[in-house]
């Protein structure tokens, strides 16, 4: 099969999915329907690539540093790292709320408009940086304890597998939809797709947050009094 043959085949696959996707799965974003239903198993693998990458990075850094934390900023050539300016704090605080809401919107409308669990999760995870910029390191670390983030991330990643295994327990192939499809265009529609997207968003956002925490902890001055 030549290049033109592959092009024709992929073109006809697109046409088929565009034609039947919405009526079969009651969602309007065909990309999400493919990612979380028709080829949901592939997305499960992709999610675990990210999961494994986060675990690998965290393990490497905790091997070196341990689980202790420090709120004292590190020093570069006897000078403390400069604090953020008031303008940065002022801009970051309102931006934090807006970005969080936007991220949740992207997650909840996965089957309707562009976006989905991964995209929304990445936006929410990145928004936690605005918490750091707007309220400072100490507050940021208090709001996001790694002891809570680690199990929450594992819960999000595990929920996807549970959704797949639930179908097998019911006698259907892995990740077969078990829920009613609902009304096309509603936030609660397309069966399990919104639930799986929320699970992915939980795993991705906390994965990003854990990564940011572990990286930034490397720039802290070790201090015995600050250990948790």
């Amino acid at each position, binding site marked *: 099969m030549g290049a033109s043959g592959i092009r024709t085949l992929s073109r006809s696959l697109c046409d088929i999915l565009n034609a039947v996707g919405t009526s079969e799965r009651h969602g309007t974003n065909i990309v999400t329907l493919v990612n979380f239903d028709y080829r949901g198993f592939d997305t499960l693998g992709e999610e675990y690539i990210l999961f494994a990458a986060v675990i690998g990075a965290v393990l490497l850094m905790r091997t070196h540093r341990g689980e202790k934390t420090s709120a004292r900023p*590190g020093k570069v050539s006897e000078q403390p790292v400069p604090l953020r300016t008031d303008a940065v704090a002022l801009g970051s605080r309102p931006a934090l709320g807006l970005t969080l809401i936007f991220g949740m919107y992207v997650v909840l409308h996965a089957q309707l408009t562009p*976006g989905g669990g991964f*995209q929304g999760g*990445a*936006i929410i995870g990145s928004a936690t940086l605005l918490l750091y910029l707007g309220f400072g390191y100490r507050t940021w670390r208090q709001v996001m304890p790694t002891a809570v983030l680690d199990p929450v991330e594992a819960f999000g990643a595990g929920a996807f597998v549970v959704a797949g295994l639930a179908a097998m327990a019911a006698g259907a192939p892995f990740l077969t939809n078990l829920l009613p499809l609902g009304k096309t265009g509603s936030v609660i529609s397309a069966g399990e797709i919104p639930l799986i997207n929320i699970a992915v968003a939980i795993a991705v956002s906390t994965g990003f947050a854990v990564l*940011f925490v572990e*990286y930034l902890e490397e*720039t802290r001055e070790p201090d015995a009094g600050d250990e948790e």
Partner: protein
Amino acid sequence: MTPLQIGLYLLTALSGAAVVLTREPRRQAFMMGLNGLVLALLFLTLQAPDVAYSELAVNMVALPFLFLVTLAAARINQHRRQEDK
């Protein structure tokens, strides 16, 4: 190909080259973020808004941020090692 796409392809090449030609690591991280923004806009014009979101969050925010933190940690730890000697 629309004029908008042609312009964004050119900007992609330009910003990509700028990442390579910038020799100072901190500036390079910012250039990488700019390259991510251009790529996100390109994906948007190519009718792939889902990918544009990922590109925006990962390549424009998360990746440059991790680079900057790594550079800061390297400088702080270098100083700490010198202090230990």
